[in-house]
């Protein structure tokens, strides 16, 4: 049974490797951040499966922290395209951060 969870963890790891191919290819930074998010979700899945395989409940705390922080990178990321777009299309536009 714990072998089954180990196998599942490994297969999820393979799917994470495939997602990294998208981060490599892009073409846009939205694609890259999506691939990173997928790696994040995969990591949580692997942590849960690994915890079950090894019967170690502490790994769930790691999964919990990872899910809590998963969306922070995305919110930092989406702050920028708008700002970047405004600052370049209108070089003399006033502060973006007002």
């Amino acid at each position: 049974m714990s072998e089954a969870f180990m196998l599942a963890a490994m297969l999820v790891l393979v799917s994470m490797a495939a997602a990294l191919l998208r981060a490599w290819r892009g073409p846009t930074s939205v694609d890259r951040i999506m691939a990173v998010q997928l790696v994040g979700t995969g990591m949580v899945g692997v942590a849960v499966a690994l915890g079950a395989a090894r019967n170690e409940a502490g790994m769930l705390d790691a999964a919990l922290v990872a899910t809590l922080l998963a969306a922070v990178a995305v919110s930092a990321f989406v702050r920028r395209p708008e700002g970047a777009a405004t600052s370049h299309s209108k070089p003399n536009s006033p502060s973006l951060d007002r």
Partner: protein
Amino acid sequence: MGPEFLAVLQILSLALLAAGVLFYVAGSVGLLRFPDAPSRLHALTKADNVGLGLVSLAAAIYWGEPAIAAKIALVWLFAIISSGMTAQLLARAAPVADGSGSPAEYERESGT
């Protein structure tokens, strides 16, 4: 709990685990194969969270302890809440393949 019941639980857990891995793989395939960022977002925010939910359920059944099951449920709850926010934010930022978005900005800063 008789041995038959435990065996049924074990089979259920294995089936959920297999289904979960399948959804993970489907999510990655979707991320790679879908034509543009908004459709790839489906793969990211739907398939993967179902995958995580199924793997979590399998783990909770396998562990068979209510306290641990509650913590696993919390993990999944946070995952779907933050994925809902991720989907909203990225969908607004994602350039569409028909050119109505502004992919040029992304291309330039990502250096591709």
